[in-house]
């Protein structure tokens, strides 16, 4: 697989010729649309059909944005390539596009976006195109500012093409380090061609936590499963008494009674009768 990141910086690589592919090649368009659809699916919005404001990082000519519009969302996109953005404008996309380098952060107010998608863009951050570029620092700036501009609990789904497990780990670590929670979702992990990496991140705690058990109904669910609800102190002898390789207190008492009747001296009964002795070395 060819890696465009290794040939030239993003603003040079995505020239007018390359940008044209993104508006004319039906194959490229189809792939972009499918990836966007999957990304939105992973954003996992509540199914209320309402319109949300989404940030599209690396929006390019707005193919992913078109899909977002079709799904009924408003979007704002950022991209580095001027040629791609001009194509987006020629195609009269519904969303707003701005030119920006994601390695410099995202220029938005805090807490405004309901979600973020990014299709095949973030791996570009791992490349140093000039002496001022330090991949780790660019990743950190990007994720810090992305976190800031997302609403609390909002999700970001970033589809990436890492060039190996180490790069995937580098991107994931950078995201988790700034406070995102989440991780990689790999679609079709066993196929070389269909394999797709999605970094699914949430800014802060998720919007709706699953309902806790035992809030209004009582504890019978736990009791049914045999979980004790009272106290933490465990009964250490329980396992021994339950197992079958000893005869039990009733058997000991019966035997003692028999010996007493025969006139043999037997120890008095106490609460310790029939118990196992402590393990000794």
């Amino acid at each position, binding site marked *: 697989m060819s890696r465009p990141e290794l040939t030239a910086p993003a603003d040079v690589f995505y020239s007018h010729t390359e940008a044209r592919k993104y508006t004319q090649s039906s194959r490229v368009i189809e792939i972009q649309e499918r990836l966007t659809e999957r990304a939105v699916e992973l954003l996992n919005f509540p199914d209320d059909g*309402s*319109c*949300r*404001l989404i940030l599209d990082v690396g929006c390019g000519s707005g193919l992913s944005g078109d899909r977002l519009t079709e799904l009924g969302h*408003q979007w*704002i996109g*950022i991209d*580095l390539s*001027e040629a791609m*953005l*001009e194509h987006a*404008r020629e195609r009269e996309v*519904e969303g*707003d*596009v*701005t*030119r*920006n*380098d994601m*390695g*410099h*952060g*995202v*220029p*938005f*107010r805090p*807490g*405004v*976006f309901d979600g973020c998608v990014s299709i095949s863009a973030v791996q570009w951050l791992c490349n140093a195109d*000039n002496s*001022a570029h330090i991949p780790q620092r660019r990743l950190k*700036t990007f994720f810090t*500012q992305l976190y800031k*501009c997302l609403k609390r609990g909002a999700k970001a789904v970033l589809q990436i093409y890492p060039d190996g497990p180490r790069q995937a780990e580098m991107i994931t670590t950078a995201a988790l380090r700034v406070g995102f929670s989440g991780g990689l979702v790999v679609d079709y992990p066993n196929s070389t061609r269909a394999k797709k990496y999605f970094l699914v991140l949430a800014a802060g705690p998720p919007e709706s936590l699953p309902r806790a058990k035992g809030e209004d109904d009582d504890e019978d669910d736990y009791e049914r499963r045999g979980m004790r609800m009272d106290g933490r102190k465990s009964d250490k002898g329980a396992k021994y008494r339950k197992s079958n390789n000893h005869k039990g207190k009733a058997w000991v008492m019966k035997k003692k009674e028999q010996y007493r009747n025969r006139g043999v001296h037997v120890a008095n009964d106490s609460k310790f009768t029939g118990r196992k002795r402590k393990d000794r070395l």
Partner: protein
Amino acid sequence: MRLLAHNMLACNAKGVVNGFPLKIVVKETRETETEFNAEFLVHMLPKMEWAAFVNAAREIGAGELPGEIPDDAATNEEFLQAFHHALLEVHVEEGTLVCPESGRKFPINKGIPNMLLNEDEV
């Protein structure tokens, strides 16, 4: 660039604490028609920096809006129509965005604001 984007954009250059709202210097605007979606507008209301939005709408000639969001905003059809027009239908095609703190200028060409920073501004 529509006011929807303008209301979210902020200058993120190094050392700038409050890069919002960016002042708009308009050279050219364009109007389009978009589908009216009351639900989205109501959803956006709490997110908007209203004072900045009203100012920006005045600067680009997108109509006058009340200084404060009316209490009955969700049902006030007239208000929502005006809000919709200013938010989604007026595009700034050519102009400049100016950071309120540092005075850094971001040009808008062919409707695309160029927020690209130099390496020493990051």
